[in-house]
């Protein structure tokens, strides 16, 4: 006996055809209205002749599944097995400094002690610590070095020597190696791009908040110094060169800038570099020190879909799904944020807050990078109880924001951060935009 998967979501298009999608496997199917009717009829009378498309919905696609299978239990086991026993990549966020030349009002790091940058002593100790870590965790086969901050390019010296020496360490230990950077983009010169391109540079993420006047009002330097022109010029430099295959442009979105984002997309379109830019949307949310005016999930989805429609219509690639999990970098077994003072955390959102440290490089590395606050996987039990179809692309939601909402205590990290309405509305809309007609 077959049934529709508990992880199957459906969207009806304007021509009455139906999109079925498995949030677990990512499979997408499109049934005409008569096919959908025959599917529902056959599911009720499975002793009757089977419509010929049924088999393609089964197997690896898992849109239809064996009725006896407990999909939630099976998925939960797979999540834990993968996380605990199949982790091969070590994601190391390296923060050369917590200083930043920008003064964005909503910065998650606003209010922290930004201290001084990483010293050479800390840097040298970090090499020993990383070497020990690899020794203690031989299952690690890939080192992913992500420069973060603060603004990492305020300390190009550390970025450069890290890329050189960490990649050498990886080579010596026969690990694959890759470099990524999250930067505001203002200091990302061609010389720096050329340098990074020699170290398996796989990702750069730069945030824009709107067209120039909106971006400059939000992501300005000290004393309101405008930053858009320089950042855009650097994005274009990357887009017109081969230092990296794709530039990830992050669009912050909240009620103060949402209406202007389509104008930014139209501006970017004029440069004709849509094939080199990959857009993503980041909803601005409250942090421990900054309260962001709350917006409804329905509103967020509506605004995001407006942005994605504009992006699609202007020739940018758009995603066919919106995901928030199920495993973030902080929940990964092998991950750490190395702060300028040598202390270690799991999530870069808590950078600079000493209460969220789980260790220090001077203590050496034995075992894996463990912080029990990010290991409470029972937090998804509530999602399972309510049979949420979005669990495979959510995983209970962001641990950090759950902590912010619930007081930041150890207990608060075990709470769900449910964004089901956002997941529902946004995924419904993205399926329409991706698989429906231009008018959807």
């Amino acid at each position, binding site marked *: 006996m077959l049934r529709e998967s508990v992880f199957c979501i459906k969207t009806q298009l304007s021509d009455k055809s139906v999109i079925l999608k498995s949030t677990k496997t990512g499979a997408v199917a499109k049934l005409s209205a008569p096919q959908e009717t025959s599917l529902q009829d056959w599911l009720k009378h499975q002793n009757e002749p089977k419509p010929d498309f049924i088999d393609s*919905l089964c197997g690896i696609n*898992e849109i239809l599944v064996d009725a006896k299978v407990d999909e939630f239990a099976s998925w939960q086991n797979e999540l834990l097995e993968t996380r605990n026993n199949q982790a091969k*990549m070590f994601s190391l966020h390296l923060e050369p400094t917590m200083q930043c030349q920008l003064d964005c009002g909503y910065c998650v790091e606003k209010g922290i002690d930004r201290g001084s940058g990483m010293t050479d002593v800390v840097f040298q100790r970090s090499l020993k610590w990383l070497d020990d870590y690899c020794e203690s965790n031989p299952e690690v086969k890939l080192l992913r070095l992500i420069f973060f901050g603060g603004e990492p390019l305020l300390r190009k010296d550390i970025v450069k020597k890290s890329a050189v020496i960490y990649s050498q360490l990886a080579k010596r230990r026969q690990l694959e190696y890759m470099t990524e950077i*999250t930067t505001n983009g203002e200091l990302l010169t061609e010389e720096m791009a050329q340098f990074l391109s020699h170290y398996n540079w796989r990702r750069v993420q730069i945030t824009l908040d709107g067209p120039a006047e909106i971006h400059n009002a939000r992501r300005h330097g000290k004393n309101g110094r405008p930053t858009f022109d320089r950042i855009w010029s650097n994005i274009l430099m990357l887009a017109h060169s081969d230092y990296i295959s*794709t530039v990830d442009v992050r669009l912050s979105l909240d009620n103060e800038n949402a209406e202007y984002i389509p104008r930014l997309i139209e501006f970017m379109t004029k440069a004709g570099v849509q094939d080199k830019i990959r857009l993503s949307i980041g909803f601005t949310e409250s942090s421990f020190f900054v309260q962001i005016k709350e917006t409804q999930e329905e509103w967020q989805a509506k605004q995001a879909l407006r942005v994605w429609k504009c992006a699609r219509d202007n020739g940018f690639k758009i995603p066919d799904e919106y995901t928030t*999990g199920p495993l973030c970098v902080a929940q990964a077994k092998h991950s750490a944020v190395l702060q300028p003072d040598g202390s270690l955390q799991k999530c870069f959102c808590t950078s600079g807050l000493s209460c969220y440290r789980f260790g220090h490089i001077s203590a050496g590395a034995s075992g894996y990078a463990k912080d029990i606050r990010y290991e409470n996987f029972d937090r998804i039990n509530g999602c399972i109880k309510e049979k949420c179809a979005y669990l495979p692309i959510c995983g209970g939601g962001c641990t950090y924001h759950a902590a912010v909402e619930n007081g930041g205590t150890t207990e608060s990290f075990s709470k769900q951060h449910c964004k089901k309405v956002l997941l529902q509305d946004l995924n419904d809309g993205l399926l329409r935009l991706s698989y429906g007609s231009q008018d959807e």
Partner: protein
Amino acid sequence: MRAPAQTVPNLAPTNTQSKPVTRQPSVILKEGKSGLRFGPVATGQVALGKDACGY
């Protein structure tokens, strides 16, 4: 028999063989994957361009 992998809407392939064969019409627009799709940090695949926190 499973439908061939496709990433865009498609019609069933035209049967040019003389002998009739039973071939299901393709309703699959995107083939599913086994395992955790978004366990990139756990499995060694890198999640690029993701939403939420960007990782």
